[in-house]
């Protein structure tokens, strides 16, 4: 198969998946629709993380904080100030980006595991605020009975299926924007930084600034996911931005395949599915998560997408060898 044929097959695959995502849900049982909706919201967050993890090479272990900032923006504004969807959306994204702007200044002084530790600590700061700033966040009890958004459209988003379509639209927008970024000259510089920071410096790049911009975008995308997540649950509590959530997001990207937006989406689907299935049988979700992590690193360091494309590559070679 030559390059152009592969491109057309991939486009066909994308189109088919999109058709299924649009046409399928009304016929799905409620439980599966729940999983699909959760997957798409987490996929937005995971794709945002992938911009800095997969493309730039920065592992953040505090990404649930941005989900939390978006979610609490909705929770507080929609209940106390009766703010509409667009207000909460804009505030959620801007707040997450602004906090990323501050956290980025602190975290980007370090690289590698130190960067990971700083982002973890900063993520815990936001989690701590959600827990302790009771007058604003209602602490441990969380904020409940948040109404589903009203966009002034003829139908209501209160039911599961219409809300699913809102989430799908959000996912498509996030995917399109991130895809545009990773294919742009700026996206290309991020890959260069991942491969060799020192070489990028002598080629004339202000490496820090590129990383910082990527970090801001990643935070903003996280805020966007948080807005959708809060309306979906009609509830937000500190457990939404728990450390375990940050680990789950990191694992989604690693498991699906770093450096591919599609991989982050696959990873989100697998982790959401696994989490919901496992919870039927056991409380030991973190243990399973740990096993998945070890398994990924040991058997598929490039993630599912990497493993599949390797396998496709080898089976193609074998076919060539047989036919010759």
């Amino acid at each position, binding site marked *: 198969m030559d390059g152009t044929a592969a491109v057309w097959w991939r486009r066909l695959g994308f189109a088919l998946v999109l058709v299924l995502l649009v046409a399928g849900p009304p016929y799905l049982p409620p439980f599966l629709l729940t999983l699909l909706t959760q997957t798409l919201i987490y996929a937005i967050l995971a794709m945002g993380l992938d911009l800095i993890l997969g493309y730039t090479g920065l592992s953040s272990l505090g990404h649930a904080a941005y989900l939390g900032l978006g979610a609490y923006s909705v929770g507080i504004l929609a209940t106390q100030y009766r703010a509409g969807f667009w207000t909460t959306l804009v505030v959620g994204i801007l707040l997450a980006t602004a906090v990323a702007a501050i956290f980025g200044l602190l975290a980007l002084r370090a690289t590698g595991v130190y960067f990971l530790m700083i982002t973890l600590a900063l993520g815990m700061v936001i989690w701590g605020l959600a827990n302790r700033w009771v007058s604003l966040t209602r602490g441990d009890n969380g904020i409940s009975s948040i109404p589903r958004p009203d966009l002034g459209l003829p139908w209501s988003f209160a039911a599961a299926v219409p809300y699913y379509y809102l989430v799908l639209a959000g996912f498509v927008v996030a995917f399109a924007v991130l895809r545009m970024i990773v*294919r*742009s000259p700026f996206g290309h510089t991020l890959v260069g930084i991942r491969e*060799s920071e020192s070489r990028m410096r*002598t080629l*004339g790049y202000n490496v820090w600034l590129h990383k910082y911009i990527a970090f801001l975008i990643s935070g903003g995308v996280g805020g966007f996911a948080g807005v959708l997540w809060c309306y979906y649950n009609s509830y937000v509590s500190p457990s939404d931005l728990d450390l375990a959530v940050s680990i789950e997001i990191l694992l989604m990207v690693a498991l699906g395949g770093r450096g591919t937006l599609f991989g982050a989406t696959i990873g989100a689907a697998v982790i959401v599915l696994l989490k919901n299935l496992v919870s039927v049988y056991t409380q030991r979700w973190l243990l399973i998560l740990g096993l998945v992590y070890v398994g990924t690193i040991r058997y598929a360091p490039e993630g599912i997408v990497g493993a599949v494309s390797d396998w496709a590559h080898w089976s193609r070679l074998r076919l060539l060898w047989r036919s010759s």
Partner: protein
Amino acid sequence: MALVLTLSDVTKAFGGLTAVSGVSLSVGAGERRAIIGPNGAGKTTLFSLISGEQLPTSGQIQLFGQDITRLAPHRRAALGLTRTYQITNLFPRLSVMENCLLAVQGLRPMKFHLHRDLRRYPEVMELTRGMLGAVGLLDKAGATVRDLSHGEQRQLEIALALAGSPKLLLLDEPTAGLSPAESAMMTALLKQLDPSITVLVIEHDMDVAFQLTDRITVLHYGRVVADGMRDEVTANPLVQEIYLGAS
């Protein structure tokens, strides 16, 4: 002649080891200068100080009359300074084309563009292909860099260095590890460089150094021990002693 690069009493010490010791030299516009010296003479460290990857312990460095002693490497690149590396320093997992594109867009504002596909910059793509053509790598544009031969990687290093249209080019042993035939090709390539580019070249191979340059600076234990035209330097008894051993 306008001075491109001036080093005044530049010293770099790593703990107790002084790699570069009180080096002063000035390089004029369009000059071709070889830096030679035995292993460990501090040649590569000197390049790193000029490019900004390392900061000197003391002394001052000026580029086009501007003090750049403490300037960040990317700002020096923006002033027109580029270097290559003795040990090939590329992006091994990216393609030849991608490597060269990173170098071409490095000094252009488009590196911050988020909204347009990189492939939709025809003038940049064309320039990049031209660069690859100039070093004879156009037919390898799609190959992954780690799959290239050592000689091809050295050629790509040159393409990356030239992509930013440098005014001062630092070449760190461009022929290191090349076969005699490859080395001759590389030398021919470097001889064709735009004469307006000022070039400093570290070279072990005297033939190559003599073909590319007319003026030579000799470093020994981090110090400049000789500096002058080719014949003066080769006639210098101290240089003969360093290279041939004391008689």
